[in-house]
């Protein structure tokens, strides 16, 4: 009896995780289907594009430039141990475009966008604004969720692309200013080395991570508990699960793009 208790516990956790996964998937599928069916709310979409895309630029830029710079320093120091300092441009390019660009931008979006979506929608839920929307014949999935998810799907790949470029620029600056690289050679090495596949994978990851970030914010917001505590809990859980899902999705997508 007692011996089997952990088994039951494990079973319950597994069951809860699976049903949660099912609920989130269903929610995501509904959100995406609402993107394509009228009525559309262009004003809400514009506001979301502004919030998710434009206003995230400073955070994305700063994250990328420091990471690119640090990356160049590390590769130079590591490469020097076996006389391979010259690979800095190639490794910075691959590291930023394939992994660090999408992952860091994804995590920053989870911190910035997922949390604000979850807190806003959860507050609307606990103050009956969602109920009010429904009674005013407006579907919250279309009015609140669809524009946010669509905005993230459009803008986060662009943010990732910008992050990649700024990251490479950060590496370039450090390499040219501090490590004595030839500017023209650095750029040529970067451009020659990157393949189409690297860039496509970067942008696809961006879209996936953006979608995850927006969907998790909306899901936890719409399912928030009551009161201020409910809002707090929804916000915390949304960021946690968005971050974990982004990292897991990154692993899967890297496998799909580079080991097949």
């Amino acid at each position, binding site marked *: 009896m007692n011996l089997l208790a952990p088994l039951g516990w494990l079973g319950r956790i597994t069951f809860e995780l699976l049903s949660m996964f099912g609920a989130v998937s269903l929610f995501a599928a509904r959100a995406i289907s609402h993107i394509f069916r009228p*009525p559309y*709310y262009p004003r809400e979409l514009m506001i979301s594009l502004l919030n998710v895309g434009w206003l995230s630029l400073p955070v994305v830029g700063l994250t990328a430039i420091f990471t690119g710079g640090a990356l160049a320093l590390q590769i130079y120091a590591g490469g020097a141990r076996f006389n391979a300092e010259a690979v800095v441009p190639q490794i910075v390019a691959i590291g930023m475009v394939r992994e660090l660009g999408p992952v860091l931008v994804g995590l920053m979006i989870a911190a910035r966008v997922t949390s604000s979506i979850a807190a806003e929608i959860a507050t*609307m839920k606990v*103050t*009956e*604004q969602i*109920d*009010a*929307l*429904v*009674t*005013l*014949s*407006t579907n919250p999935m279309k009015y609140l969720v669809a524009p946010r998810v669509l905005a993230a799907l459009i803008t986060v790949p662009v943010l990732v692309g910008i992050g990649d470029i700024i990251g490479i620029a950060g590496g370039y600056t450090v390499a040219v200013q501090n490590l004595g690289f030839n500017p023209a050679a650095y750029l040529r090495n970067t451009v020659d080395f990157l393949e189409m596949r690297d860039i496509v994978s970067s942008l696809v990851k961006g879209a996936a991570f953006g979608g995850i970030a927006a969907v998790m914010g909306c899901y936890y917001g719409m399912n928030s508990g009551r009161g201020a505590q409910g809002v707090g809990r929804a916000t915390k859980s949304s960021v946690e699960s968005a971050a974990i899902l982004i990292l897991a999705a990154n692993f899967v997508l890297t496998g799909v793009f580079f080991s097949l």
Partner: protein
Amino acid sequence: MILMENVQKSFDDNHVLRGMNLEIPKGTSMVIIGGSGTGKSVGLKCILGLIKPDAGRIMVDGKDASKGDRDKFLARFGMLFQGGALFDSLPVWQNVAFRLLRGSLKRPVEEAREIAIEKLRRVGLKSDVADRFPAELSGGMQKRVGLARAIAAEPEIIFFDEPTTGLDPIMSGVINDLIREIVVEMGATAMTITHDMSSVRAIADNVAMLHDGVIQWTGPVSQMDSSSDPYLEQFITGSAEGPIEAVR
């Protein structure tokens, strides 16, 4: 006509509605009274389909409220929420005109704004609040904006959840008159929740008292004072002594 038959709703082990029966004839004003937390708001939300009852049936004009076209169904309703439930990302006039700016009742923006300002005037708010945001208004003003939003599209059926709570006596009088007017002039069916006995007398054709999850007493407002129901009597007189436990 709205008909609730044996409507039941629990949240976990909190049995809120235990078989609510109520009939509201078309074009009349029903007022629901009862202690706070007895499930009056939950009852209204069940009719609108915002909360799904565990059991029972709700009919509107002879049709099951949970079936059929939701949009068409909801387009007939206006609702004032207990907490106002204004959209804080939109200025006041866009809150009031929300329905008139999108969907099947859409009109030109200028016309929608004019209607919004006219409705604001009817609830005693000047046109200078139109461009402010809900968070900049006092609680009583927010309540009145919510009221203006509920009546903006001139719905056939209007629910008011505590329309006068938080208002001064004079403003309460204005709102009571307005609700009465809407029923008499527009022929709307109204259902109002209130704790305020002077509101009850000003608004109601019929009164129903909710207690312990069921309608304890219902009848025309004229018979309210002559009723010998001990629950109703205690509520009207506001006495701490009686069958309704006042936990202290």
